[in-house]
């Protein structure tokens, strides 16, 4: 059996996810998806640049080691590097099948306000940017997730809701960014109101 590290290494660049037929067929509307939500923002270009760091996937060897009892268990843990709003990386681990939301919450909620609706697709506070390869390899977001994502501040090309991201073994070592969006809020009160 291959070790966790090798598995991770060999799995990049990621291949489309099994059992998710349409995963590499981009949603038709994703091509333009570089946008602030409807009424929430007035930033000029409308384009949220993806953080550089997401594009460089750290090799497994540089990750902090997590001591695990059995090889079997080892195979079921996935390490995720979360770049918090302050830009600091946080390593956390979760089991295959858990959602990213679970992982963050079980790590003692290091991201303020994360998961306000407790994973019921009703809030967007679990919004994250994924690395492009991972975004493309994952199952497409459902219509319900897209509906909610459309409300997220700082919506970008690889935005997902953490409560809908289910950990897979190949995600080991994945870097995920929590959007920093306070800067986008300032123009809000001036949002183009009409005189009728």
């Amino acid at each position, binding site marked *: 059996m291959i070790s966790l590290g090798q598995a991770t290494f060999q799995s990049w660049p990621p291949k489309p996810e099994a059992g998710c037929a349409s995963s590499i067929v981009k949603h038709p509307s994703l091509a333009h998806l570089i946008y602030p*939500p409807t009424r929430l923002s007035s930033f000029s270009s409308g384009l949220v640049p993806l953080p550089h760091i997401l594009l460089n996937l750290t090799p497994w060897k540089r990750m902090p080691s997590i001591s695990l009892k059995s090889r079997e268990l080892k195979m079921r843990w996935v390490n995720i590097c979360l770049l918090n709003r302050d830009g600091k990386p946080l390593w956390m681990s979760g089991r295959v099948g858990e959602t990213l939301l679970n992982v963050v919450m079980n790590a003692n909620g290091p991201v303020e306000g994360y998961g306000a609706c407790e994973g019921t697709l009703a809030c967007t506070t679990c919004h994250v940017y994924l690395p492009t390869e991972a975004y493309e390899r994952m199952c497409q977001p459902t219509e319900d997730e897209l*509906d909610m994502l459309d409300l997220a501040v700082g*919506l970008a090309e690889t935005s997902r809701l953490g409560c809908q991201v289910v950990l897979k073994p190949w995600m080991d070592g994945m870097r995920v960014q929590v959007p920093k969006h306070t800067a986008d809020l300032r123009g809000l009160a001036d949002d183009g109101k009409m005189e009728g």
Partner: protein
Amino acid sequence: MLGFQASQRLRPLWLSTHLRSHNSRHVTRNCCFTGVRRKLHACVVGSGPAGFYTVQHLLKNNKEIRVDLYERLPVPFGLVRFGVAPDHPDVKNVINSFTQTAHSERFTFCGNVMVGRDVMVSDLQEAYDAVVLSYGAEDDQLLRIPGEQLPGVYSARAIVGWYNGLPENKDLMPDLNVETAVVLGQGNVALDLARILLTPVDLLRKTDITGAALDAIAESKIKRIFVVGRRGPLQVAFTIKELREMVNLQGVRTVLNPSDFEGIERVLLENIPRPRRRLTELLLKSTPQGSAGCVGHREWGLLFHRSPVQILPTADGERVGGIHFQLNKLEASGDTMKAVPTGNSEDMPCGLVLRSIGYRSLPLDPDVPFDKRRGVIPNNRGRVEGRAGLYCSGWVKRGPQGVIATTMNDSFETGEAVLEDISNRSASPQAGFESIRPKLASRGVQVVSFGDWTRIDRVEQERGLKLDKPREKILDVQEMLTHASG
């Protein structure tokens, strides 16, 4: 898929890890800091999302600070309790996180205290290192047109307050004995109103809607609701999730006029933002040519390019009988499209008018600067202009716009400003609530603590249990106060 959803509901696990770590942090902090540095003391006014998220940020990022939260009502959570629609219980899960914050030893809830009446902002500034105003938007925008005061014309705010159990709206009892209702404005609040009034009553029964509203809606004669906007389909302010709920509403037909959508497909070929694109695609699908929508004996529809210029009375002049609209066309004006009159007009008969054109904040205290035009406290990233030690967050900071997540972000921004300033200032120790308490006592104010609220909460939940709903809200402030004192 089902199992997957279920596995996402994880409250017990997080809650337990959270609370454990929370307590242990307290222990270390107390040993490290007791007597070393003076205690910082801040207060926040208003316990909606802005208030609670500001508190959360302060407590999390400064381990010495104490925060007191003043709320005008005996019950916390602002619009999460009194705004968010009863059929959206998932949105209210955020209350769990607020409750967790409230259990911090460094937090005090002071309910039933109206700032600006029971205690003034200047009193608070004397008692605290920092005062954050997060009192939301307690009023609503007026159309300022003739007939607006006729019986049968209601503000969205009042109707929402009525079905959600806001004490001041408990006796509203709108007359739903009419066939046609018009909602003016095309935001999410407008769709909330239309949906609640048209949702099958058996579905509403399982929500925390008030018993009185449920009875009135069960008796309602409303057959159709028009949601009317002054601009076009590309300018609607509601979002896709709420539109989809309307389109899929059981037993309710969606009625859209295809001529309103002429040329829209061409716009969709352009590079428009994804949220607007998906929303418009769903609107197109819901036109008679489209595939979406339900069949039913009741209907709802969107009307565009109409500005109300007068609310018309019935022949006897007793109540609302219709609306006189001016028809508009759109003209580009900078980045936005502006509605300008075409010169044509139209009368539309209806028996109920709901004005849903936005909420509005009010000045709290003559001492606090207020921008009347924009309806906000003038501020720079949460720092009230020209007033050291005074801050604001939420709707009163940026206007009545945005969902809870937006409010959260701006509250964190304000929290950050407070912490930045507070660490740079040296002042004498502030007594906080201890110096406010005697003032309140002398005015006979019964202050409701968070423990008191949990007693009210328990009574509401017990009443709900009997009716097979999450809670039956108490509508009367006096009754709340009775249960609060146990």
